[in-house]
C-alpha cells in the first residue's frame, strides 16, 4: 500500500473501531461507579486474612500471586530475549567489526559536578528502593516498585560516567544470576507450599501480630523480596546491554 492509501484504510477502520469501542464503554456503569464485588470484598477481607495493610500488595503477592508468577517470567523472557538478540553484536563476529564498534571509541567525559551529583543520589535511591521492596505489606510499595527504583539508582551510576564502577558493582553475569534466582525463588516459594501439601503459593509462614509490620503477612514479604531482586536485576541488565551497545567498552582492555 502507498502511504495515502494506508492512511485512508486506517482512518476508516479507526473511525469504526472507535465507534464500536465507545459503544461498549457507554455500557459501563459510569466512571466512579465501580460495582464490585471483587475489589470491595478484598478491601474488606485482605487485612484480617493476610495482615497486610496494603491491599494491592496482598492482591499481587497472595490472592492473585499466580498471575504475578507469570508476569515475572514475562520479564525474565524479555530480558533473556534481549540477551539472545544482542549477543551476536558483542562477541561472535570478530572478523567484520562494524565501524561504530571500533575499539578507540571512548566514553564521553563527564563533568565532575554531574558525577558528584549522580554519585550522591545513587546511594539514597537504592536505599529507598530497598525500603520499598521490604515494605510490601504496609504502604504503596513492594517488589515491583522497589525493584525499578533500585535499577534507577544504578542507571544514575551509569549516567555519571562511572561505567567501570557500575561494572564492579553490577557485572552482567552476576545480575543475570540474581535475576534467575529472583524468578526461581518466587516459583520455589510456591513449590515449598506444595511440598508441605498445601495449595501452590499458600502462605505457610506465620502472619505476625501487628498488621503492616515488616515481619507480618508471611510469604508476602518473602515473595516481594524475590520480585524485587528479579525486577532490579532485570532492568540493570536491560540498561547494561543497551549501554554496552552504545559505548562498547568491550574493545578496551580492561
Amino acid at each position: 500500500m502507498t502511504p495515502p492509501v494506508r492512511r485512508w484504510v486506517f482512518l476508516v477502520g479507526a473511525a469504526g473501531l472507535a465507534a464500536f469501542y465507545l459503544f461498549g464503554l457507554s455500557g459501563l456503569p459510569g466512571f466512579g461507579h465501580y460495582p464490585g464485588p471483587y475489589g470491595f470484598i478484598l478491601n474488606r477481607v485482605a487485612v484480617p486474612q493476610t495482615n497486610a495493610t496494603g491491599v494491592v500488595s496482598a492482591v499481587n503477592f497472595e490472592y492473585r500471586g499466580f498471575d504475578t508468577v507469570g508476569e515475572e517470567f514475562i520479564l525474565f523472557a524479555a530480558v533473556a530475549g534481549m540477551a539472545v538478540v544482542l549477543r551476536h553484536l558483542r562477541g561472535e563476529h570478530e572478523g567484520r567489526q562494524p565501524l561504530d564498534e571500533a575499539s578507540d571509541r571512548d566514553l564521553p567525559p563527564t563533568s565532575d559536578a554531574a558525577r558528584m551529583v549522580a554519585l550522591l543520589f545513587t546511594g539514597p535511591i537504592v536505599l529507598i528502593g530497598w525500603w520499598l521492596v521490604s515494605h510490601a505489606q504496609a504502604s504503596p510499595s513492594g517488589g515491583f516498585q522497589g525493584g525499578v527504583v533500585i535499577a534507577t539508582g544504578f542507571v544514575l551510576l551509569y549516567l555519571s560516567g562511572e561505567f567501570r564502577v557500575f561494572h564492579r558493582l553490577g557485572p552482567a553475569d552476576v545480575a543475570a544470576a540474581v535475576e534467575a534466582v529472583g524468578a526461581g525463588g518466587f516459583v520455589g516459594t510456591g513449590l515449598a507450599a506444595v511440598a508441605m501439601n498445601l495449595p501452590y503459593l499458600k502462605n505457610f509462614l506465620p502472619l505476625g501480630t501487628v498488621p503492616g509490620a515488616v515481619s507480618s503477612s508471611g510469604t508476602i514479604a518473602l515473595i516481594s523480596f524475590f520480585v524485587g531482586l528479579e525486577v532490579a536485576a532485570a532492568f540493570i541488565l536491560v540498561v547494561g546491554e543497551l549501554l554496552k551497545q552504545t559505548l562498547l567498552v568491550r574493545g578496551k582492555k580492561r
Partner: protein
Amino acid sequence: MDQLFALAVTVPLAVAAAISALRPLFDQRRWLLDLAAIVTAASVVVMLAMIMARVTGGDQVYWFAGFRPARGIAIGIDFEAGSLSAGLATLGAVLVTAAMTFSWRYFERVATYYHALMLIFLAGMTGFCLTGDIFDLFVWFELMGVAAYALTAYRPEERGPLQGALNFAITNSIGAYLSLSGIALVYGGSGALNMAQIGAWTTRHPGSRLVVVAFLLILAGLLVKAAIVPFHFWLADAHAVAPTPVCVLFSGVMVELGLYGIARVYWSMFSGALGHQYGLSRLLLVLGVVTAVVGAAYSFRERHLKRLLAFSTISHSGIFLAAIGVLNPLGLTGAAVYVAGHALVKAALFLCTGIVLHRLGTVDEVRLHGRGRRLRVTGLVYVVAGLGLADLPPVATFLAEGWTDAAMPGWAVVILLGCAVLTGGTVLRAGLGVFYGVGDPPTRQAPRQAQETAEETGETDTGRQITPLTMIIPAAALTCAAIAVGCLGFTGLGPAVEAAAVRFQDQGTYIATVLHSARISHPVAPFPASPADVTAVSVATGLAVAAGSATIALLTLYRRRLPLRIRPWPRAVAILEGFQSGVINDYVAWLVLGMACLGGLIALIVR
C-alpha cells in the same frame, strides 16, 4: 486437591530459572542442558496425561493459594481442566519434547537461553490451556508471546529474523492490548475476573452492549494469534525466519491455542449472553472459509518450503475456525481431533524441512528439485505426513474431516474440501519434487526469491553426510502418532471426544463446577449431538482428498507438458503480493480495519 495442576506449569518455570542461574555449569556440558530440558518437557507430558486421565469423568478445579469461592464469588485464581483443555496442553508438551530432541543436534552452538525460553513457552501454553481466570489467561498468553518473539529472533545473523520477529511482536502486542481492554471492560461491568463468574454475570445481561464489545475486544488478540484473515500477515513472516524447531511449535500448537482461546472464552463467558446464534455462527464460518481460501492460495504459489507450510497452517486454521464456528458438539469434536492430527503431521513436515536444511543447506523448492533423493527416510516421512495433511485414511485428519463435514453446511464443505486438496497438493508437490525428482527439472530462477531462500543457510552448517537419529526419530514418531490416533477412531475415539466437547460447550456445568464445586458427569448437549463415528463417507472423502491432492501435485510438477498453459494473471498476483507486503504499518492498518468490520457485524448480528 490435585497438585499436578500447579506442577505442570511451575516445574518448567523452575527448571528454566535454575538452568539460567547455573549457566556457567553448562558451558562445557551441553548434553546436560539438553537432557534437563527434554526430561522436563517429557515429565510435563506425563503430568498432563495424568491430568487428562483424571478428568475424563468430569472437569476438575484447582484453587491457587487455596482461596476457594464463596457464595459464587471467586477471590483467587483457578485452573479448570477438562478433557479438551488438558488434551491440547498435552499435545503442546509432546511437540515441545519433540522439538527439544530435534534441536539437540540441529544447533551447533546454542545458548542456555534457548532452553530456558522453550521451557517458558511450554509453561505459557500449559497455563493458557488450563486457567479459569480471564486475566490469568491474558498473562499466559503474553508469556507465550514474549518467549515466542525471542525465539523467532533466535538467529539474528540472518536478515530475515528481525523483520519477522518485529512484525510478529508488534501485531501480537496490539492484539494483546485490545484483549486487555476487553478484559477491563468486562471487569468494569461484572466486577469479576473468574471466567465462570463472568459467565454467570453475562448470562444475566444478555445482549448488553458492554458484553458484545468486550467479547470482540477479547477476541482480538486471539484472532491475531490464530492467524485469521485479516490478522494473519505476521504468521508467514515469523515462520519463514524462526528456527525450525520453533516453527514446529508455532504451527503445531500456538496458532491452535488462539482458536482454543476463542472457544474457551465463548463457551465459558459469553455463550449464555450471546446465545447459539445463527448469525454469529455464520460470521465465524465465513471468516474461517475466507481464511482457508486465502491461506491455500498463498501456499500454492510459494516455493520457500517453510513459508509454504506456514500458509498451509493459515488455511487449516481457517478450517478449524469454521468447524468451531458451527457451535455444535460435532463441529468441536471435529476441530479438536483435526487440531491434534494436523499438529502431529505439520510438526513432522517442519522437522523434515529442518533435516533438508541441515543436509542440503537451502529450503528453496526449485533449487532442491531432485536433490533430496539421498534422504530416503526423510522423504518417506515427508510424503506420508503430506498425505496425512491431505486427509488420507488412516491418519487422524481424515476422521476429523468426516466429522467437520457432517457438522457444516454444504457450501462450506465444498470450499473447505477444495482448500484441503490445494494445500495437500502443494505440500505433496514439494515432497515429490524435492525427494523423488518427480516432474520437469526447473529451468530458470526468479532471482529475487532465490536470494531470499539462499539466506536460510545459517541455521546449521551445510553439506552434512548423515542425518542424526535425534532428528529423524521425532519426525517419524510424530507421523506414526498421527496414524495411531487415526486408528483409535475405529475403537471409540469419536464418542469420547464428543462427550468432552459437549461438556466443554455446557456453560451451566462449567459455572457449577468452578463456583459451586459441583461434579456433573453427564451434561446435556445444547444441540442434539449427532454421533461421531467412522463412516464409509468419511473414508471415501479422505481418499478422494488425498487422490485430488496427488493429482494437483502431479499436474503442477508436469505443468509444462500440459496441452493448455495456465498463466497466472499478473495483476492478480501483484495484488496478492501487495497484501503480504512485510510493512508493519500495513499490518496495523488491516488489523484496525478488520476489527472495525467485525465489530460492526457482531453489533448488528447480536443485538
